[in-house]
C-alpha cells in the first residue's frame, strides 16, 4: 500500500465514486426497468408482471424501424471510414517527429466542435452547393465526430508495437509494407476492432448533427427525439432501453477485453 488513506477517507472516496456512477447509470437503468412494465403509467414493474409487450410492439412502429435501418447503414459506413482514416492518421502520427502534437490536435479538435454548429455549418455549405441532405451528408457529419475517439483508441493500441520488432524485421529485409502487415497489423487488431465498434456506436447514438443533416429518412435518434417530446409512449422506453443495453454490452465487452491493456498488469503497489 502506497498511501495510508485511513478508513474514513477511503469510505469517503468510495462513496463519491459510487454516487458518480449512480448519477450516470441509475436513470437509464430505471428507464430499462420501466420498459418491462406492461402498465401505461411509467413505474417499476413488480417481478410478477414483467412483460415484453412493448418490445413486441416495436416491429409495428414503422417510423422507428425505418429510422433504425437508416441509422444502422449510416453507422456501419461511418465506422468503416472512421476506422480506416484513424488508422492512417495514427500511422502518420508515428512517422512524424516535430509536428506530432500539431497533428494530434488536428485530428482531436473536431471532438470539441459543438454538434449544433458542425451540423449547421455542414448543412448550410451542402445546401449552398446543391448537395441534397441524405445518408451521405449524415455520414460526413458523423465521420468527424467518430474519428477523434477512434484515433485515440488506435493510438493507444500502438503501445503493443515495440520499435525493436520493426527494426528487427527491417534488418531481416522486410519492407515497410511487410512490417506493417506481419507485425503492426496483428498487434493493433484489437484496437481496430474497438475503434470500429466505438465509431459505430457514436454514429448510431448521435443526434444533433443528424438533426441538421438527415434527409427524408431521419435517423433513429432524430425520430426518438420527436416522439419523446410528443407524449412518450412505453414503446419509446422499449426502443431507448434496447439501444442503451446494446451499446453498454458492446463497450463492456471491448473495455474488459482490450481497451485498457495495462490495466491488469498494474500490481506494483
Amino acid at each position: 500500500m502506497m498511501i495510508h488513506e485511513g478508513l474514513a477517507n477511503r469510505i469517503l472516496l468510495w462513496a463519491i465514486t459510487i454516487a458518480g456512477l449512480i448519477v450516470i447509470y441509475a436513470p437509464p437503468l430505471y428507464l430499462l426497468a420501466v420498459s418491462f412494465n406492461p402498465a401505461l403509467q411509467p413505474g417499476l414493474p413488480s417481478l410478477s408482471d414483467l412483460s415484453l409487450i412493448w418490445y413486441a410492439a416495436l416491429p409495428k412502429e414503422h417510423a422507428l424501424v425505418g429510422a433504425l435501418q437508416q441509422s444502422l447503414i449510416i453507422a456501419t459506413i461511418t465506422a468503416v471510414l472512421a476506422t480506416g482514416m484513424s488508422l492512417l492518421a495514427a500511422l502518420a502520427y508515428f512517422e512524424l517527429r516535430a509536428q506530432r502534437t500539431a497533428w494530434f490536435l488536428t485530428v482531436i479538435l473536431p471532438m470539441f466542435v459543438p454538434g449544433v454548429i458542425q451540423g449547421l455549418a455542414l448543412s448550410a455549405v451542402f445546401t449552398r452547393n446543391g448537395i441534397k441532405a441524405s445518408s451521405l451528408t449524415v455520414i460526413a457529419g458523423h465521420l468527424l465526430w467518430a474519428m477523434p475517439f477512434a484515433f485515440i483508441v488506435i493510438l493507444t493500441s500502438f503501445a503493443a508495437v515495440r520499435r525493436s520488432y520493426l527494426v528487427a524485421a527491417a534488418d531481416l529485409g522486410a519492407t515497410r509494407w511487410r512490417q506493417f502487415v506481419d507485425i503492426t497489423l496483428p498487434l493493433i487488431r484489437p484496437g481496430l476492432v474497438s475503434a470500429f465498434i466505438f465509431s459505430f456506436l457514436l454514429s448510431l447514438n448521435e443526434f444533433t448533427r443528424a438533426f441538421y443533416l438527415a434527409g427524408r429518412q431521419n435517423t433513429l435518434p432524430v425520430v426518438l427525439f420527436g416522439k419523446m417530446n410528443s407524449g412518450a409512449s412505453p414503446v419509446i422506453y422499449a426502443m431507448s432501453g434496447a439501444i442503451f443495453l446494446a451499446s453498454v454490452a458492446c463497450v463492456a465487452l471491448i473495455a474488459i477485453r482490450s481497451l485498457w491493456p495495462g490495466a491488469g498488469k498494474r500490481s506494483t503497489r
Partner: protein
Amino acid sequence: MTGPRLPISSVLMTPPLLAILAFGLAPLTIVVVWSFWSWDPLTYWIKPDLSLAGYAAILEAGRWTVIVSTLVKAFGTALLCLLIAYPTAYAVHFLAGRHLNIILLALITIPFFTSYLIRSFSWRLVLGRTGILNTWLRDLGIAQAPLDWLLFSNFAVVIGLVASYLPFATFPLLLSMRRVDPTFLAAAQDLGAGFWKSLTSILLPLTMSGIFAGFLFVFVMVVGSSTEVQMLGGAGASIVSVMINDVMRVANYPLAFAISTIVLVVIFGLVLIGNRIFGLASLFEDQSP
C-alpha cells in the same frame, strides 16, 4: 531506410486530413466568413456585404444573457464534475484491486458511447411529478406534495449535464494519475505525511494537467450541449446551442453564424491555450507502458 523519397507520413496523412478539412475546417471557416455578411430579403439568404448586424443582434432580446448563463452552467458543471471525478479517479487508480479496476474502467468508458439523448430523457422518469424520486420523497414523508422544481428546471439541467459529461473529467484525471511516479508518494509517506498532506502537496500538483484537462473538456462539452436543455430545461430555458436552433427556425442566418463564431472562438481559444500551458496532447501521448 535511406535515400530521398516522398515522406511516407504525408501520404498517410492525406485522406484523414482531407476529411478534416472538407467536413470540419472548411465549413466552419465559411460560417465564420458568412457571419460578417448581411441578410438579403430577396433571396432569403445572405449577400457578401460586410455587416456586423449578426453580432449586433446578439446584444438584443437578452441573447447575451443566454451566452453568459451558458458559461456559468459550463463553469459550475465542470467544477461539480471535478469534485466527483477526482475521488473517482483516485479510487480507480489507487484503491481498486485488479478486477475491480477493470470493471470501473469499463463503467467509466461506457457512457462515451451511449446515447446522450436517451440518458437525458431517462432523467424525466426519475425527476418528474410522478417520477420515482417524488414517489420516494412522499413515501418517506419528506415532501407532502410532489416537488415541481425537480424537472424542467435549471436543477434538472445541471444534473443531466453532470451525468452526461462526468466521464470527460474522469478520463484525463486517470491518465494523469497513471503518470505519477509512485515513489514520490512513498517518500512522502516515509517522511510522515498523512493522506491529506500527500494529496495536497504531491498528488494535486502532479495531476494539475489532468485537472485542467478534465475541467476544460467538461466546460467545452457543456458549451456545445443541447439535448440536456431540450429534454430537462423549463419553458424558455436555453443554452447557446438551443438558441442557435431557435434562431435557425426563423432562418436568421447572420445571427446563427455570429453566435456560432463566438462559441467556436471561445472553445478553440480555451483548448489551444490549455494545450500551450498544460500540454493537453501529452496526456494522451506516449501511452506505452
